[in-house]
């Protein structure tokens, strides 16, 4: 693509990220601030962890920091590579086969080889962003703590880039194979399902190594000795292991650590250029089949006459959510997280009444955080998923407030069920005092009702009718803002439930907190965060100008 095209694309991306002007910029700025806050927390946390590790290792001479660093880096590089592989697999189905932009570019006198290379590059970039966001600050902190920061940074970033290029190229090739094998209209769903299964497997794998052992000093010491007293195995043919070896050497100030990184980067660049080049003809043929196979496919529908307006509104919401190709995969991932949360419950400390009270509060907060994740995906985009049909909707004699209520109701029911089940299971295991249990259930109910309302309202206040899909809406700056607010509510829930946390808070603030005050504050916050955005969105959707063109 030429420079004008790239400049136009960059300007368009900036416009969609920052919004037009005025109110449309609020979620973008809030999202940016949230992102900066996240990075700051990551940096501060890692710096503290490095300082603590340095102090602790002074008392453990049998442990070799280089061994620990290499094993830690191998885990981190492996996880990041897996994320990029799964991300590129899912993204490539869209960018290589279902992209309107590709369709528009294909009629221009541009060789197909260049088009595919361009889409492959876009896929790699999009799939790498989440991992880069996590990795860059962490590697920056690690490099800054070394004697030779520039060498350390290069030794970490070169192999990381190489791994991302390799994983992304494999993901792209996998997407081509997938779309070749699976009927085109199901390919995106299958790719998303594969990604969800991969992430679920990773979560279960993470659970299987029992990270809670680190909370037990004896077990933690044993784990550290197992990881830090003996040298890691030779990398063999594993690119991840070579990346970790090179980065560990670089962090230790050894310039030879650059070699694996350079080799991996060259291999990655070779894969990133050769995979699209080798698959040009396959892509051209499969893409043609996808386009020709996407004509209307009808299946006689059941006749389901309308009985009430509320019924048809709920039915419409269900159709929109359930027919989204990514929904099963997203629900699968969330279900895996919920199952892990419940599996973890039996490991909770139950001997000490104070610990039971404390963990009951934390578990309630965690339940609401998981509900917030569910709600971010399904409630926040509720209004935006009307897409350009919003113009028709606005011309109908339907009060937007009533419609918002239906949108909320369709999403609040599963949210309440999830928060009550997760909290209820924790309470069943923990058996805290009756007052704590009652507060936890009340908080779970109120939070389960309030969080979808908060998200539905904010999504209606800042709709994005031009977004490609619901996930793009949820992951946009406004969605990040909504997640920050709902996470705040989940944090408040922990204090509202646990007497131990109330005491701790009182101690930190230097005041005696009345027993019922945090619960009252939570209920008030839940009510305000539910009602205010919905009321504002109802007003905005009635009176504000709508432009969907």
């Amino acid at each position: 693509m030429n420079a004008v095209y790239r400049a136009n694309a960059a300007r368009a991306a900036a416009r969609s990220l920052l919004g037009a002007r005025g109110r449309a910029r609020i979620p973008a700025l809030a999202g940016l601030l949230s992102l900066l806050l996240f990075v700051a927390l990551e940096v501060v946390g890692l710096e503290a962890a490095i300082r603590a590790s340095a102090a602790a290792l002074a008392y453990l001479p049998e442990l070799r920091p280089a061994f620990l660093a290499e094993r830690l880096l191998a885990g981190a590089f492996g996880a990041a590579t897996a994320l990029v592989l799964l991300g590129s697999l899912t993204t490539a189905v869209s960018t290589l086969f279902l992209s309107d932009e590709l369709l528009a570019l294909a009629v221009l006198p541009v060789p197909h080889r260049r088009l595919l290379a361009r889409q492959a590059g876009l896929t790699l970039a999009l799939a790498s962003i989440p991992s880069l966001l996590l990795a860059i600050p962490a590697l920056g902190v690690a490099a800054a703590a070394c004697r030779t920061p520039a060498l350390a940074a290069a030794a970490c970033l070169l192999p990381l880039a190489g791994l991302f290029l390799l994983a992304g190229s494999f993901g792209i090739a996998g997407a081509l194979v997938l779309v070749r094998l699976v009927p085109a209209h199901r390919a995106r769903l299958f790719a998303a399902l594969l990604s969800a299964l991969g992430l679920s497997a990773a979560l279960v794998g993470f659970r299987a190594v029992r990270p809670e052992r680190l909370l037990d000093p004896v077990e933690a010491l044993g784990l550290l000795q197992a990881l830090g007293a003996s040298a890691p195995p030779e990398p063999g043919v594993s690119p991840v292991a070579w990346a970790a070896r090179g980065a560990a050497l670089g962090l230790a100030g050894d310039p030879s650590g650059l070699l694996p990184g350079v080799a991996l980067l060259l291999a990655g660049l070779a894969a990133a250029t050769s995979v699209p080049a080798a698959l040009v003809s396959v892509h051209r043929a499969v893409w043609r089949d996808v386009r020709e196979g996407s004509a209307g496919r009808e299946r006689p529908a059941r006749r389901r006459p309308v009985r009430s307006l509320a019924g048809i509104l709920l039915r419409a919401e269900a159709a929109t959510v359930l027919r989204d190709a990514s929904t099963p995969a997203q629900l699968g991932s969330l279900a895996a997280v919920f199952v892990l949360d419940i599996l973890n419950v039996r490991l909770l400390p139950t001997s000490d009444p104070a610990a039971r009270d404390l963990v009951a509060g934390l578990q309630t907060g965690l339940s609401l955080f998981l509900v917030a994740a569910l709600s971010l995906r399904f409630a926040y985009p509720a209004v935006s998923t009307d897409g350009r049909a919003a113009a028709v909707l606005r011309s109908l004699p339907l009060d937007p407030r009533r419609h918002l209520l239906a949108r909320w109701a369709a999403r609040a029911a599963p949210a309440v069920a999830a928060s009550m089940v997760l909290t209820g299971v924790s309470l069943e295991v923990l058996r805290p005092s009756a007052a704590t249990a009652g507060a936890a259930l009340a908080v779970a109910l109120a939070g389960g009702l309030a969080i979808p309302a908060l998200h539905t309202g904010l999504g209606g206040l800042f709709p994005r009718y031009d977004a490609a899909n619901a996930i793009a809406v949820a992951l946009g700056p406004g969605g990040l803002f909504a997640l920050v607010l709902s996470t705040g509510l989940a944090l408040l829930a922990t204090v509202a439930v646990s007497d131990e946390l109330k005491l701790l808070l009182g101690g930190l603030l230097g005041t005696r907190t009345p027993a019922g005050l945090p619960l009252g504050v939570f209920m008030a916050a839940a009510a305000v965060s539910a009602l205010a955005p919905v009321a504002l969105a109802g007003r905005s959707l009635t009176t504000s100008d709508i432009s969907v063109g």
Partner: protein
Amino acid sequence: MTLIRFEAATKRYGDKTALSDLSLEIPAGALFALVGPNGAGKTTAIGLLTGLLSPTSGRTFLAGIDVAKDPVAAKAKLGFVPDRPYLWPKWTPRETLRFVGAVFGARGEALEERIDTELAAFDLVNVADARNETLSHGTRQRVALAQAFLHDPEVLVLDEPMVGLDPIAQRSLGLRLRALAARGSAVLLTTHQLAQAEELATDAGLLFDGRLLARGAPGALRTASGLTGALSDVFFALAEEHPA
């Protein structure tokens, strides 16, 4: 009886005036064509009438109901076809019509029968249960038209309705518009195609740079301008007299 009324309606975006002081009344039984070049303010005028936009000043009325003051009651009189066939992508044409019909108060088997009638009228029976996102532009346009006709609206507003339709569908739509107007509804449509406006409309307004330059039956407009040609000649003459 006046069914569509603009009362000194003005819409500004910052310094730009998209529509200036539009006053217009369209009675029951009229088939009114609002014609003008790109950027003349046609879609803005329709936006004000359908509640998509709020006027900077002035008011709009549907069947005597102020659109800004009582939008739900006003829109209950309205059928609307936007400039492009915006449909819920994951729904089918039948589900789209069912949703729209239910919002207008229709229920049960009566609604299902009416949906079947409109699907047949717009030649949509074969794609009734396919998802909207899989339909061609022309087919989606027919779905958008079917949903606007579904409840026999007192006021029908169509923004460039002929775009994307084949000649048979255009002719069929013209007949339905005339029939609706003959039953006492008011029809307001915008078009770039002056010949089409002349053929269809009983009344026309020439909009240019946000201002209504002239209105009247196509024949009357010709007489007033002193020209004898087609409506397009009148339009071009007025456009030259009022440069943007």
